[in-house]
């Protein structure tokens, strides 16, 4: 199963807030999320994130592919495979 780690936008218009989620890449539209591993809030200055390190490492080592922006967040968090 191709699994991706991506952002999902929550919050209302003009006040974006994102969850970092693990989801199946082959059925991206059904809205199902396998796990929630953190958040990203661009409303603060500087923008802030929370990441569950253990879960993030677990999913990365299981072969989950982070999107470009999630890779960036992981890099700032010092999370590698």
């Amino acid at each position, binding site marked *: 199963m191709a699994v991706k780690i991506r952002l999902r936008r929550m919050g209302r218009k003009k006040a974006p807030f994102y969850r970092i989620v693990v989801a199946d890449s082959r059925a991206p539209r059904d809205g199902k999320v396998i796990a929630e591993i953190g958040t990203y809030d661009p409303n603060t200055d500087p923008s802030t*994130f929370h990441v569950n390190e253990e879960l993030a490492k677990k999913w990365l080592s299981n072969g989950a592919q982070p999107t470009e922006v999630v890779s960036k*967040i992981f890099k*700032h968090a010092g999370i590698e495979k």
Partner: protein
Amino acid sequence: MNSQRFSFGNWCLHLNLQIVGNMGSKMEKIVEQGLLYDFYGELLTEHQKKIYEDVVYNDFSLTEIARENGISRQGVHDLVRRCNHILQGYEDKLHLVERFLRVKENVSRLEELSNNPNVTRQELVQEVRLLSHQILEEL
């Protein structure tokens, strides 16, 4: 008592697992595109909106969107680039996002001031006058 200890332990464990950090002040591309879409998205066609939302709200890759919609990856790429161009064009003419961000910054400065116990009443009144003047100018 036991249950209290247990939940406190869980709480500590939870904190240990969380990495908290910041990404700096530069706005990420997906956030910028999302804001432009919030302001001007209604001016796109239904098809453009559907594809663009998958990019900026759901963080889908071009390949995933192409597969979902039965179009080529290149087609999605061109459409997203065109939407970026259209939305940026509106922003260059109307500056709604720019103004919104300036007003938001001034409002958070007002909030900071109101929470700062070291500010005297006179300083507060002066700053509030200045900031509210700046906010009014943006409207």
